[in-house]
């Protein structure tokens, strides 16, 4: 029995994103200085504005990439929409507003759609590093139509799973919602079943290697770790898999990575 319990604990502690040292390295991550976050958020805003992006898909690094599964570098994805912003004190300006799906604070098995600012988007980041997809301008217009419509919220499924299967509607995470909205824009549809059928046909999720023991006991650690919506293999939507999908179908204008010191184009 003791051996069995040990196996379970090992499985849990080695869940794909976790290595033996992940906990300590994660625990020693400093919270980024607010001034640096603000400066980087402005850099990303100005970069997008300089490229004329009215809608972009932006991702952040929420954890040390060393503890994430292979092929996953970014942990949160959202739409950034160029907007006219008015504050409650009456001041106005133009810049980007971020359309997020966030895990609910206090109940990580559910999510909410939340708007925040570029600074807030990066406030919880592990490092100042953003993956950016600027869609083709024609697609940007379609995305704006969906984001400004009731379809955007209607495509939200509040049942959250970290590793949600993008081909089903059982659970959803931030990246899957982004993908669903993208598909709604591409196909001019608000039909969830049609969207899932098209995702199943044309989108290749990022595979995540998990063994049976890990899949069995992960929900014991947190229900948000369920893989009940997957078959034999686990795959989820990620920034990288969305970028590959868009590049493969000529839907992107630019795909790149931006840090405080450089901008690097992701190869097609």
């Amino acid at each position, binding site marked *: 029995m003791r051996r069995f319990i040990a196996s379970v604990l090992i499985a*849990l*502690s080695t869940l794909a994103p*976790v290595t033996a040292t*992940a*906990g300590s390295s*994660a625990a*020693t991550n*400093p919270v980024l200085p*607010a001034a640096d*976050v*603000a*400066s980087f958020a*402005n850099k990303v805003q100005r970069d997008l504005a*300089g490229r004329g992006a*009215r809608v972009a898909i932006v991702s952040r690094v929420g*954890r040390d990439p060393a503890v994430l599964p292979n092929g996953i570098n970014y942990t949160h994805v959202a739409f950034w929409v*160029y*907007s*006219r912003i*008015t*504050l409650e004190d009456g*001041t*106005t300006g*133009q*810049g980007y*507003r971020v359309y997020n799906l*966030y895990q609910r*604070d206090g109940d990580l098995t559910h999510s*909410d*759609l939340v708007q*925040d*600012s570029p*600074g*807030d988007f990066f406030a*919880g980041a592990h490092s100042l590093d953003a993956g950016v997809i600027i869609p083709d301008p024609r*697609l940007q217009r379609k995305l704006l139509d969906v*984001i400004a419509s009731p379809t955007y*919220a*209607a495509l*939200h499924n*509040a049942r*959250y799973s*970290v590793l949600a*299967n993008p*081909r*089903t509607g059982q659970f959803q995470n931030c990246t899957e919602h982004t993908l669903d909205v993208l598909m709604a824009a*591409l196909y001019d549809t608000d039909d*969830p*079943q*049609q969207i*899932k*059928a098209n995702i*199943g046909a044309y989108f290749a999720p990022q595979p995540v290697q998990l063994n049976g023991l890990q899949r069995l006991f992960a929900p*014991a*650690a947190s229900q948000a*770790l369920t893989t009940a919506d*997957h*078959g*034999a293999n686990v*795959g989820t939507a990620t920034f990288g898999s969305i970028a590959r999908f868009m590049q493969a179908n000529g839907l992107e204008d630019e795909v790149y990575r931006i840090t405080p010191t450089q901008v690097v184009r992701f190869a097609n």
Partner: protein
Amino acid sequence: MQKSKLAITLATLTLAAACAAPSVQHTAQSVDHSAQAASHGASAVASGAATVSAVPVVAAGAVLSVTGAAIESVGTASVDAGIEVLDAGLGATAPAGCRVAATRQPAPCVAPNGPPVLN
């Protein structure tokens, strides 16, 4: 036993950080640094006036600029994370025959459209 608890906690916190709101993210990153985390609220950057409206700008033109209230600055900028929850739905659950539980194939009762193209 403490090690056991730690393993479970770390696994949970590490994975739970995906799609995390800033407040959740901070909690997850601060396992042993609660004092540090406590110094950062849900909105680590912004602490000023909340945004009351943000209207997408659709006008044509290639050059955009970031101005006024949209510029982030520590202590004076703009928004409170998490205060503007738009909506929370449960989405439409596919009929039983359309669910994809055991395979990675598309839902069998809805035929996919053609590959995505932009006109």
